């Protein structure tokens, strides 16, 4: 995994270095264009756990959904910087009282997350590659039994990556497919979400 991240970071850094080197050699006519962009991506999600989520089953894969939003500052460079957040459901499981003899009551368990990350992304043509660094507010909800409904939240370190191709519709609005990957390595959670992304440059100066 570290190798993959190294390669990703290296690939991301090459255009920066090249652009920086180019700008010292040639002084092209500069048309200053800095934008503030907002984008939203949503879609289904498949989550993979390193270990079974409960001792009751051997289940390690779940389907859920993911909605991510990014607010980015995009100066006249290939790199843009901003904040990423959203909401994602990693897993939901329901058990009858026969499934859990020790509890003898039906239970529903849910694991959700809200990413809170610094977002970096690189654009070239319609392609965009991004990485989110920081973590997730990880929240579990147990419904049923003693607590009726009990929620607990922790902060867990993690990263996300996004790869998308956007088609411009008008001057400031673009839309296209995106693949979103969430990685919480300490928890052994990987989630992949193919989704639809819409981006709007709502400020330009």
């Amino acid at each position, binding site marked *: *995994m*570290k190798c993959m*991240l*190294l390669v*990703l*970071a290296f690939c*991301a*850094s090459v255009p*920066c*270095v090249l*652009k*920086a080197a180019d700008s010292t050699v040639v002084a092209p006519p500069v048309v200053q264009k800095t934008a503030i962009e907002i984008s939203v991506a949503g879609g289904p999600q498949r989550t993979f*756990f390193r*270990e*079974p*989520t*409960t*001792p*009751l089953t051997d289940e390690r894969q779940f389907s859920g959904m993911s909605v991510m939003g990014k607010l980015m500052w995009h100066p006249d*460079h*290939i*790199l843009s*910087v901003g904040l990423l957040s959203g909401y994602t459901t*990693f*897993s939901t499981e329901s058990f009858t009282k026969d499934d*859990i003899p*020790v*509890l003898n009551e039906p*239970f529903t*368990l849910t*694991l959700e997350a809200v990413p809170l990350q*610094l977002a*970096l992304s690189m654009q070239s043509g319609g392609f965009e590659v991004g*990485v989110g*660094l*920081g973590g997730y507010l*990880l*929240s*579990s909800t*147990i419904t049923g*039994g*003693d*607590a009726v409904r*009990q929620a*607990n*939240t*922790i902060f867990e*370190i*993690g*990263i996300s990556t996004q790869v998308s191709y956007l088609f411009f519709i008008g001057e400031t609005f673009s839309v296209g497919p995106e693949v979103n990957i969430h*990685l919480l*390595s*300490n*928890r*052994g*959670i990987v989630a992949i979400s193919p989704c639809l992304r819409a981006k709007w440059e709502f400020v330009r100066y």
Partner: protein
Amino acid sequence: MKNITLVLAALVLCLNGCVSELTPVVYPTVDYETVISTTTPLTLEQRAQMNGIYIMQEGRSTFGDTVAVRWDGEAMSIYTVKSVSFFYVRGGMRTDSARFVGYWRAVQGPETGEVSLGILASEGGKELAEGKGNGVGLTLRGTITSPGSSRPNTLVLKKIKALANRTRGFEIIGHRGGGRNSDRLGKSENSIELMLFASQLGATACEIDVYGTSDGVPVVFHDPTFTPRTVQGAYLLGDISNYSLRQIRGFVRLVNGEQLPTLEEALMEVVDKSTIRTIWLDNKDSRVVDEILAIHQRVMDHAASKKRTIRILFGIPTTEIYDAYMKSPLKGTAPVLCELDQASVRASNAAVWAPRFTDGLQSDVVAQMHKEGRDVYCWTMDDPGFILRFLTEGDFDGFCTNYPTLLAALFYTRKDLK
């Protein structure tokens, strides 16, 4: 330049965000049954005859010059300082020779392998069969397999003297029930399974950690929160005190798959199934002090009914626990181990004072504690240099350690103990 800096910062954050898992240790599969079914178990006298300090005639490049051999129950252990290894072997007598099989493990690394040992009639087997002598000169001869070695290596050990001991006695206290999850012992820290195995690792005592569940049940667990370091299961997040025992039983297991034990279950199992002499309860939740003391009474009654001698020490590591203990209606019903200052030790009438090793030898205070009839245990001793210094220059009655194997090897093979 700004972009490059950002990318580099991103890289650092990425790498820090990834967690490398330790390589699992794959223990060899040993056929104990074949050997056990074709040998006669050693008597207690024969086991005592075998216990001792042995010199390594062959195999010293891996295990050093001197090792300690000690029987515990049905298994024989060998403890080495070099490589910090323990051997777990089982077997018995065949007329006037002996045969043992098992495995060895270097506890500070992943190395492990099979062990096959025997005693020839001409090398002490005859005397052992007849129960004559003190075992000096007895020779264990055999082979071990090692990772990276295509064929077994020869091992020859010869007994030179009895195990070193200490007049006042000495406790080798296994931290977290005998070891940590990072040591990959195949048994989770603070599990019943590890407590029952601790004596094979060299421990004569166990330190275990006690928290309370949301419904007030004392359970054995090291951390205040559930994390992937300690448990399997995705749904129980945050403090252990958020969850009832039923929820914990339903939704998590310890990292090696064991049930998270209640304090009472753990103590009853140790009383019934182990040779551990002392349990140190490292109490971390002041809400359940009364319940812990009540459990202590029930377990000691059970031990008395089984004629089992065991000392269960109620640990006072913090002022919160101290205050809760001093207010408890059950105060004075259990022997206390106090980690606080001398005034608190005396006020709580602690049987044991337990200072941290970083406070030094404190010889005058230790002598005073001994005069007052208290034992002194030092924690947490993992470095061989410090262990040797504290063993030879200090006068402690026990050390708590993450490596009971190392402490056992150093303690039993030392010459100049007080």
